[in-house]
């Protein structure tokens, strides 16, 4: 384990200047036409995290998740063969959403409309009066969706034949994520929020610490120190479209009495189990397009920002834990941990919406990122590269003049 220097050292401007220093166009953060391009160029063809294997504990377990940006509803099943499969939650008879529940356990799925029944493998098992149809049952299976798991997290890709597998998409980050306690989680706490803001503007808030002292003067007080008043991270790394930062922990953080007690207990519980300690516990992972993963054993959470429209998104925050609450102390400490994270995110949500209202006016042609907002810049580049490539491809194919 490497010791953290006690004196904070700011990552140098030169380290990140390779990503550019120019202003960033504001349009992509509010315009409908840009969002339509993102929908096609990114969300219909990239890996999107949608759940955790702990939600599929046994054969027959299933979950259903919306992906609004693709107008999709995805059914994920665990079969008798233990295999995790994903399908469009769409009955192949006439398109009805097949499963209305968000989760459960079933041997088969029967459509409410005309009772077509499908197995966990997506095959059409039975359909009333089927001899009057003009199609084979074998052609009526649920439409499969590419699915894979990394660090316990379930990802799907809506592209019929994804250009990259999940492993290739995540690259070296996959191995780092596997070391986190999240990969062995068996349960989670969750809070969700809706926000009138673009998904990038929302996600960017969590990719910079510049705002911390202004937006979290109290809830973020422990993160700041005299030699690092902005609580900037110690390091950034870039992996293709993904990025990470290593957070700085204030050696002289002034903890409050019960806060100290609760976080101390969580730290003790984690320390007692070597499998929960990762060399990446102080790293934050920002997976393309919009998944935030923080591995610290005291506050291990995954925050997904799902786009709904150009100026509306949904955030889902989950604190992933190993084991059900073992005793009263663990219950208390986990409840505190959730309340603490929720308080911080509540403050973020308000100011992100204010930012969106300003951008929607069209008053700005450009926004600006400083060197410590380089992760935001990196996301924009990753998005815009894909959007421009998609646009060029469409142009070449003659679809768009």
């Amino acid at each position, binding site marked *: 384990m490497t010791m953290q220097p006690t004196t904070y050292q700011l990552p140098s401007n030169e380290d990140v200047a390779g990503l550019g220093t120019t202003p960033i166009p504001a349009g992509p953060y509010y315009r409908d036409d840009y969002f339509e391009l993102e929908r096609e160029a990114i969300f219909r063809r990239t890996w999107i995290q949608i759940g955790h294997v702990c939600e599929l504990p046994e054969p027959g377990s299933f979950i259903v998740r919306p992906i609004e940006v693709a107008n999709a509803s995805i059914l994920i099943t665990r079969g008798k063969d233990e295999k995790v499969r994903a399908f469009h939650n769409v009955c192949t008879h006439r398109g009805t959403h097949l499963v209305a529940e968000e989760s459960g356990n079933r041997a088969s799925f029967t459509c409410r409309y005309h009772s077509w029944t499908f197995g966990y493998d997506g095959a059409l098992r039975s359909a009333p009066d089927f001899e009057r149809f003009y199609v084979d049952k074998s052609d009526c299976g649920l439409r499969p969706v590419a699915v894979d798991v990394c660090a316990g997290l379930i990802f799907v890709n809506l592209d019929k034949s994804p250009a990259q597998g999940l492993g290739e998409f995540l690259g070296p980050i996959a191995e780092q994520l596997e070391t986190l306690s999240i990969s062995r989680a068996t*349960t*989670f*706490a*969750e*809070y*969700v*929020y*809706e*926000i009138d803001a673009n998904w990038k503007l929302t996600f960017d808030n969590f990719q910079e610490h510049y705002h911390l002292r202004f937006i979290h*003067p*109290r*809830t973020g*007080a422990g993160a700041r120190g005299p030699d690092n008043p902005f609580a900037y991270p110690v390091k950034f790394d870039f992996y293709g479209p993904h990025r990470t930062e290593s957070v700085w922990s204030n050696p002289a953080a002034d903890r*409050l*009495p*019960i*806060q100290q*007690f*609760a976080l101390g207990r969580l730290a003790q519980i984690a320390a007692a189990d070597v499998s929960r300690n990762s060399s990446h516990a102080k790293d934050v992972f920002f997976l393309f397009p919009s998944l935030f993963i923080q591995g610290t054993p005291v506050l291990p959470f995954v925050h997904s920002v799902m786009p709904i429209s150009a100026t509306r998104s949904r955030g889902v925050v989950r604190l992933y*834990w190993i084991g*059900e*609450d073992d*005793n*009263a*102390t663990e*219950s*208390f400490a*986990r*409840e*505190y941990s*959730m*309340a*603490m994270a*929720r*308080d911080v*995110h*509540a*403050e973020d*949500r*308000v100011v992100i919406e204010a930012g969106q209202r300003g951008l929607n006016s069209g008053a700005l042609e450009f926004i600006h990122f400083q060197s410590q907002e380089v992760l935001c810049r990196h996301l924009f580049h990753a998005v815009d590269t894909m959007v421009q490539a998609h646009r060029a491809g469409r142009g070449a194919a003659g679809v768009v003049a």
Partner: protein
Amino acid sequence: MSTTNFLLPAGFEALEPFVKFWAVAGATARAQRRNDCSEQERAAFYDTAKELLAPALAYLDRKPLNKFDEKEKRLMNMLLSLAHVVQAVEVLAQDEEKHAEARRHMKITRATADLNS
């Protein structure tokens, strides 16, 4: 008043006056109590509960969570409400009222403590 009238396990009598308001099931309800209390109410609860938190958890830790009797359940639920109100008293302080409005949009959909019973 005989001991049978107490709502909490013996040793935690000082918390009895707080049972009615704070001993509620469900994280959403507990978070809502934090919103619904006055500054004086949360200060009084915090001041009394602060010293009793460690002994109360030690007491409850002797039993599996799903084996709690009614008194123990109440005590547990109160402590879980404390987990929310700590943020108001220790962290947000005079910013708590303004913060409550921001929090309204953060909907708790699942808490591990609610999976215990």
